[in-house]
């Protein structure tokens, strides 16, 4: 599978990764090689095989809907790059 420069840019945009023009060309070759190698999976007959998302196939356990912590705003905010009062700060989103 060839992944051209434009496809790389589109994926990078979906993944929120800024990439330069130069880098998108390098990545196009790189990803193409890796995907070509991965495509050997097509040799495997998987007709009727149920996909396996996790080996842990039993259903998720239930628990009581209880508050088990809280009042830890300072801990939650401690590693944030920018805060104001009890909030995370991000660049302005709406005009």
């Amino acid at each position, binding site marked *: 599978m060839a992944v051209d420069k434009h496809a790389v840019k589109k994926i990078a945009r979906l993944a929120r990764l800024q990439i330069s023009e130069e880098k998108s060309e390098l*990545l196009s070759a790189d990803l193409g090689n890796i995907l070509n*190698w991965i495509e050997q*999976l*097509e040799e495997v007959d998987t007709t009727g095989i*149920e996909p*396996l998302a996790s080996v842990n196939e039993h259903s998720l356990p239930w628990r009581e809907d209880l508050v088990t912590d809280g009042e830890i705003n300072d*801990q939650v905010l401690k590693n944030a790059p920018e805060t104001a009062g009890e909030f995370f700060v991000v660049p302005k989103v709406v005009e």
Partner: protein
Amino acid sequence: MSDLLKMTATQAVFSLSQKEISSIELTNAYIDAMETTSALNNYVTPTIEIAKQMAENADKAYAAGSAGPLAGLPIGVKDLFCTKDTQTTACSGILKGFTPTYESTVTSQIWQSGGVMLGKLNCDEFAMGSSNETSIFGPAVNPWSAKDGAALSAGGSSGGSASSVAAGSALMSVGTDTGGSIRQPAAFCGVVGLKPTYGRCSRWGIVAFASSLDQAGPFTRTVGDSALIFSAMAGHDSKDSTSASVGVPNFSDVVNSSVEGMRIGIPGEYHMDGMDDEITRIWKQGRSWLEQAGATIVDISLPHTRYALPCYYIIAPAEASSNLARYDGVRYGNRVDAETLDEMYEATRAAGFGEEVQRRILIGTYALSAGYYDAYYLKAQQVRRLIKQDFDSAFNNVDAILTPTTPTAAFELGAKISDPITMYLNDIFTVPANLAGIPGISVPAGLSKQGLPLGLQLLAAPFREDRLFSVASAIETQAQFSLAPARAAGELS
């Protein structure tokens, strides 16, 4: 001083309980060793003051008769485990300076058992790599040297965890294994590395890479030590919904139990074209050791083995691309300022993630994107089931499977980093166990002609780590492997 470094954990527990040595003496010996081996770049954040405090507490516990099973033992921690108030970076630029306000379940169980934290250990960035070269701190170096003196990779991703135990700057360590990240570096450095059954150890508080594959496990110098620390790490945790509600036996009791009558499978598919003769030789050697110990050797087939790596390189990056979406410069980690929110995300992630991490995020995003999901992600999940079924049927017939751990001994730093697929091939024998969720152990078995360690891997059915320990100790007994790397802190054996 070097006598202290020579002790196994099991011996140290005995000496500590007999008051022949104190934890502070033992810990100080390791702190000195961290200093003398600092060129190996194993510790990214040493925690000397914490270590001394924990050692004092352990000595008090021994005096009071309340010592836990790991009391006073100096232990290093892969920098992927969140440690309260101690920087945790996953060896990524995006998390430099991150200081968790909580402790991972596995490490808190180790500290509750009396373990002494020496510091945080080097690894590949977000555990993505097989040589420890993607770390923002630079590679951990293998304490074993090539004959020409070239610096060798300690393996990865848990390179620092393996190298420190081999070099004598940690008595034991913990790491994580998503596709071989414990077993491969253990084989490269000549130590014992255990990847437990998926769900055996809680993943809570471990920086996530691929959630359906990640497992925590120990590095030790002996199989007995592995059983000792693993018994303290394992167990159900309500904070990890995938952790198993399965009882944890005292695994130390099964080490050295006989393998007489056990059936050991040799999978034909693990004979790879172009595999090193030395690897074939050590594999045959392992087979005859087990025969001599009274086990029955059975040829088995795991037909989908060769598809495990390409399957893994869809599933792991897909899960990683989702897990790593959280590093957005808002709640934690570093931020690159920009005009708009989207520009801030893009600039932050481009600056914070290294090349291999970005490559995997892109592969994962591609495999999950509209139009490609069925062809890649769904297909890989189907192949994953076939790989698991291969093991399910094999374990109807055998108690354990014997394979080499790696296709080669440790390679030179820089030898493979420029070619992703060549690097990925390192994990060819280890990846299937992660896809199938089964436990695996690498045990040092001998040396190559170059004088470098070679490991043998044992695999067992889910939750049968007991079988791994008994077969691994049979190999250990016969191999009489001598842990003597050139760049260790002192003589270790």
